[in-house]
């Protein structure tokens, strides 16, 4: 219980430290929103007038205080650049990113768990080597390259799926899925390859354990011994890695959203940075940071569930 409490306190402190870091980073970013809004024919007075209108001339501590107080009430404020509230914008874009990232992770696991296990079972045989080789290639391919190749083949070549864009599920599930499939595969293929390698080594590790040897000695085949006694244990390192990789996927999604013109957090972030829409940048970065930290927290807790040793030690 105490361990849990201290883990939660650690989480809260990290989130707070992140707000300070994010806010400070925004201040040292060169260029400002007033200048961008004023554009190429503006004089220094024009810029100063807009700065005042945006409230950028207020003391930093006041700006920071307003921002944090607002966030605690679930309000990211109103963008001075778009003159629209930021919270709905963040909520809309986070949906897109989460759908993308979660689907990609699920698909990656669907690829990785059977393939990795198979590769481990077939170690030393030619098919096993082929599987390992394929996953090696997958690891080497960057997400965006996978995306470009998929668009060339399945969109421009075969015409099966749209090359870009997004359709919310409420406007038709068919359109939603057809827009989703290529971005998800771009992320999942690479991710699947990475996870396949982890699953394979985790399974190999487990197969060397005494309890599996005992199970085999009692007459089980390697596969059934693994299925009954091994997979749960093999899942521990895989869950850890999958958690870490989920954070990588979030970052990968930023690029993939650009390639497929998806209105997710990545696209929103790029746009907000370009316009120096600092409140929007802060909001998006904070949500991303929060997600990654929360994810780590969940993984830690999940770890406790999966491994009684950790649970008892705590």
């Amino acid at each position: 219980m105490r361990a849990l409490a201290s883990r939660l306190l650690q989480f809260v402190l990290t989130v707070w430290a992140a707000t300070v870091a994010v806010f400070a980073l925004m201040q040292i970013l060169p260029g400002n929103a007033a200048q961008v809004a004023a554009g190429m024919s503006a004089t220094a007075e024009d810029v100063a007038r807009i700065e005042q209108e945006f409230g950028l001339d207020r003391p930093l501590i006041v700006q920071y205080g307003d921002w944090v107080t607002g966030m605690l009430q679930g309000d990211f404020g109103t963008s001075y650049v778009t003159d629209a509230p930021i919270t709905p914008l963040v909520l809309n874009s986070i949906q897109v990113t989460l759908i993308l990232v979660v689907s990609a992770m699920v698909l990656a696991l669907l690829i990785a768990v059977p393939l990795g296990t198979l590769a481990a079972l077939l170690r030393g045989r030619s098919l096993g080597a082929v599987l390992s080789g394929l996953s090696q290639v997958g690891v080497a391919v960057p997400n965006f390259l996978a995306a470009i190749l998929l668009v060339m083949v399945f969109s421009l070549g075969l015409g099966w799926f749209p090359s870009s864009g997004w359709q919310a599920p409420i406007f038709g599930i068919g359109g939603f899925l057809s827009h989703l499939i290529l971005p998800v595969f771009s992320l999942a293929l690479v991710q699947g390859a990475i996870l396949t390698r982890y699953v394979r080594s985790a399974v190999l590790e487990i197969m060397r354990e005494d309890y599996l040897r005992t199970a085999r000695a009692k007459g089980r085949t390697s596969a059934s011994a693994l299925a009954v006694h091994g997979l749960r244990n093999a899942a521990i390192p895989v869950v850890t890695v999958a958690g870490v990789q989920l954070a990588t996927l979030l970052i990968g999604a930023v690029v993939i959203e650009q390639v497929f013109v998806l209105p997710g957090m990545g696209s929103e972030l790029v746009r907000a940075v370009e316009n120096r829409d600092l409140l929007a940048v802060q909001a998006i970065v904070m949500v991303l940071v929060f997600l990654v930290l929360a994810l780590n927290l969940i993984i830690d807790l999940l770890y406790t569930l999966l491994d009684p040793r950790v649970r008892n030690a705590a």
Partner: protein
Amino acid sequence: MSRLSAAVAGTAVLALTITGCGAGADSSTGSEANADRTDIIVAHTAEPVNLDFTTTDGAAIPQALMENVYESLVRIDQDGEIQPALATEWELSDDRLTYTFTLDENATFSNGEPVTADDVKFSYERVGSDDWTNALGAKMDVVDSIAAPDDQTVEITLANPSNTWLFNLASLVGAVFHPDGVDDLANTAVGSGPYEVEEFTRGQQIVFTKRADYAGATPGELDTVTFRYFDDAVAASNALKSGQIDVIGNLQTPELTSDFEADDTKQVAEGTTNGEVVLSMNNADGIFADQTAREAVLHGIDEQAVLDTAWGGHGTMIGSMVPPTDPYYEDLTDVWPHDVEKAKELVEEAGIEGEEFTFTVPSRPYAQASAEMVAAQLEEIGLKPDIVTQEFPAVWLDETMTNHDYDMSVINHVEARDLLTVFGEGYYTGYDSSGIEEIAAAADEGTEEEYVEGMKEVARTITDDAAAGFLYLFPNLVVADATVTGLPVNAVSDSFQIYDLAWS
């Protein structure tokens, strides 16, 4: 284990639904199928930050809204000529100070209210107020007074005669608003144009619908026009190839032009713009404060080679700050011919051989590609450009434009008739404008012929002073489905006009 397998089973079902669903893509490339369509999707690059050009700079907002949603009294047609818009006719007094406009009596705003002279007075007086922060509002500074003797008549008196004012009025400063429609300009547009904004989804698109009650000069053809925004130029090209969009407003991947030209289902039109790609040099400070050094650069550069490399040869040689569609254009491409030997002599004369200087380049494809080529040519004549890429707009505006912290830069100046701004006092070019100010002022106040002659002299002086390099005029490469008609091929006004778009 049981939880795990349940999760696996659940996701397997999801995966099956995904893969089983197959193609939802509508690849409607059949030309006959398009003839009955009442909608069209147009791709553009830069998305409007908001809908309020009275406070926010950037070409994307007027591109979407001017002429389509908001109208001015006059507009600029595809040939660069002034045409009636909200005003059906106008007269200029003998002292050339007072314009009397007659408003179209059928004109209404999208909120149903008629467009009256009072609305025009309200709108134009607002340009000078604190509510209007876009610096382009300065174009209305010459206005002395505005009177509305009756509902259909507007009298605008200028402080001094001005040839440029009526032309400027066709730009966003001339937009007529309804007094009740200016509360939330960033999100809601109430205009008198043939279309209204049905939906503005940030990060994705703007949907325009045709106004049934529009009775003005430029009625719309199609019921629905969508502007979809693609940050990524390749994604836009792919979307056109796969039939998700119908038009690319200005192709930013010129290397793909020949692909589209070879495709029978597509059409490519190369039009002109007001965008001069300028090789700016800091005239006020540093290595290029010396005119000899600037002359060396201009002799050292082969503009055609820059254009060929940077934008696939699409664009026009100009040699001055004036596009061929302006009345005072003259061909000045021969003033500083490409002459490497001469350039080397001038480098020696200026004593700048091997001297390093800062070449700031905005992070835009045309600028990056142009700068690489220019830098290579300058190295050939013994100069050492140090290329610094600056994020555009934020960092470039801050460092180069505001702080003048640069020696050389390359940028597309997109405003119409902007030579007096770009080479005006205090601007980042650092040009000594004392030699052109009086000529320009006299030209603006003079007769139309005097205006043309005077402005020619201004442009020639700027070029003769080697104030900057004029690399090329940025092209407008419109690519569309072969059956689209009414495309605005020339981007010579603020607007991308959607009202003539149709299917054949």
